[in-house]
């Protein structure tokens, strides 16, 4: 029971279904109770507007609120002037009435559906505002983010979390080196996150903040990763230039291997949505680094003409699994067109083949070890990312603080148990007045506690007699008026309790059960 609908957890609850024991908003009420003939018979009633936890009982015309019995008693206490307020009993309804019909049943019922919808729209508007705030707040941390804020805002405006289209849209028109890719995942995580926290503004912001910090670290890591890879590739560029055509072969093999591992890693983690965005940059960096390296086997001429090609291949890598094909095409085209532009290195290919094969072997070894390091790093980063994301999700989620039923049988029992004024009562034979009066007397007169163990069920006459244990047999203290009044009031209370819980000997379901 609470302020939020039990079904969607989105809108505030308005009605209470007795059969389902659930608070629902109007739309969910309509959905749930139109499902089948049995649900249509459920009787629903308005919720108390004060406590939002009990079904409303009366409507106070002066205060214009619907109140449950408790709130009614509390608010219209006999001692205050409110006791003269006119109260009208609220009826329940069943079936699937529309808002108009509900208005006719309850004359005070306003069209709150539109209010709910406008609240939803407001929340969406708030979401987009928060997204813009975040995208601009990234500027000091990552410089190149600002370039993409336009693209990010555009994607946000559509509320379209289409990763592939989002990435390709900004990568293809801009011929930038790979750092732009790093911005992209950050931007797309930015788009995806607000979708996951549509509830209210503040929890969304807090979650996004957490994600922001998290992604900043990720971006920095990727930058370092990339520069390390870049640096490595630059060191190898001279060797690669010497070993022209074979390197492209190596390039294809390694690229396909890198792609397969990246795709495998992506598929393994693809189930967690927010993580895919973060992990792909790591993989794409590895693969793109390899592709860059293999592309760098071409001389500078190729670099200028094929820079667009490389950026296209980047986008292909990051977007789809056809990255392998892309790279293979690139590599094969390099092979085919490799000869003419390689005049400068051709002269150096006259080195004897023995030393060349040695160099090739050394290069292969270095490349293998370097690749192994890259893969290990990727895996490590991926594991860290997963753990971090899980932690953050758990910490930031509201599930910790929501009502959770641990044992279905206990809940079932609790739902079914008799309650008096919200408290559980034992349905067994109620102990009558003597005990009740005795207990209250015990609390009021501490000396009587000494008698508690010995006197199990004493009548209040005995209490009157023995309330001063030290003066037990003083005849002139035969009758103490305060204790007598206490006992009488206790009698009355006990009688009232037993009267209200009279059907205690009826079984759980309200019908007599045979013990089959």
């Amino acid at each position: 029971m609470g302020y939020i609908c039990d079904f969607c957890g989105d809108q505030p609850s308005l009605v209470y279904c007795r059969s389902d024991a659930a608070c629902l908003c109007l739309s969910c009420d309509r959905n749930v109770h139109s499902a089948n003939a049995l649900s249509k018979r459920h009787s629903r009633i308005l919720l108390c507007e004060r406590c939002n936890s009990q079904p409303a009982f009366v409507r106070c015309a002066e205060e214009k609120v619907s109140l449950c019995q408790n709130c009614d008693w509390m608010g219209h206490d006999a001692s205050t002037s409110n006791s003269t307020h006119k109260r009208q009993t609220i009826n329940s309804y069943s079936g699937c009435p529309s808002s108009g019909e509900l208005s006719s049943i309850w004359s005070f019922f306003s069209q709150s559906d539109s209010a709910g919808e406008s609240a939803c729209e407001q929340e969406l508007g708030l979401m987009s505002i928060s997204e813009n705030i975040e995208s601009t707040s990234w500027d000091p941390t990552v410089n190149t983010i600002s370039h993409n804020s336009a693209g990010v805002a555009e994607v946000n405006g559509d509320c379209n979390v289409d990763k592939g289209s989002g990435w390709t849209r900004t990568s293809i028109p801009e011929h930038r080196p790979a750092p732009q890719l790093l911005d992209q995942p950050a931007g797309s995580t930015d788009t995806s996150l607000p979708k996951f926290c549509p509830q209210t503004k503040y929890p969304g912001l807090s979650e996004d903040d957490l994600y922001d910090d998290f992604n900043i670290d990720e971006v920095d890591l990727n930058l370092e990763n990339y520069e390390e890879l870049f640096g490595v590739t630059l060191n190898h560029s001279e060797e690669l230039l010497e070993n022209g055509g074979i390197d492209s072969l190596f390039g294809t093999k390694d690229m396909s291997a890198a792609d397969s591992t990246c795709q495998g890693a992506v598929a393994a983690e693809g189930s967690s949505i927010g993580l895919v965005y973060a992990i792909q940059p790591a993989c794409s960096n590895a693969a793109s680094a390899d592709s860059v390296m293999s592309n760098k086997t071409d001389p500078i001429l190729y670099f200028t003409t094929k820079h667009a090609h490389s950026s296209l291949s980047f986008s292909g890598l990051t977007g789809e699994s056809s990255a392998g094909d892309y790279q293979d095409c690139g590599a094969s085209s390099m092979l085919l067109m490799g000869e003419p532009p390689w005049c400068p290195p051709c002269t150096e290919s006259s080195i004897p083949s023995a030393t060349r094969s040695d160099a090739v072997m050394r290069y292969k070894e270095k490349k293998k070890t370097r690749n192994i390091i890259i893969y290990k790093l990727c895996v490590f980063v991926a594991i860290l990312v997963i753990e971090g994301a899980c932690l953050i999700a758990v910490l930031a989620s509201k599930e910790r603080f929501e009502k959770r039923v641990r044992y279905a049988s206990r809940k079932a029992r609790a739902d079914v148990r008799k309650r008096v004024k919200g408290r559980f009562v034992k349905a067994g034979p109620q102990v009558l007045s003597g005990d009740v009066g005795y207990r209250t007397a015990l609390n009021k007169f501490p000396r009587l506690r000494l008698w508690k163990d010995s006197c199990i069920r004493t009548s209040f006459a005995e209490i009157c007699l023995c309330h001063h244990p030290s003066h037990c047999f003083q005849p002139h203290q035969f009758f103490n008026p305060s204790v007598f009044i206490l006992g009488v009031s206790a009698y009355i209370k006990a009688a009232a309790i037993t009267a209200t819980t009279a059907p205690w000997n009826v079984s759980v379901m309200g019908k007599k059960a045979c013990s089959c």
Partner: protein
Amino acid sequence: MCKGLEQGGNRSSSCLKQGFSSGLVNCELCNSRASLYCQADDAYLCRKCDKWVHQANFLALRHIRCFLCSTCQSLTQRYLIGASHEVMLPTM
């Protein structure tokens, strides 16, 4: 299966014989023999209809259904919660 006879021979008085003269309770949706009673819905249901009705949404899944004795179709102390979680709730 019916242990009612042991309980002081109260079976005739405590067993709820259905009010119909036919003595047979039918499922309210498909009119076959009923084997469950849902107190929240106040309906007698057969096993299949119960599954269909109460697996529609999670609110319905919370209903506690009471098994009916297969001989006399009166309420037992075996209850069904959720999809298929059978419990014995003690009387209070």
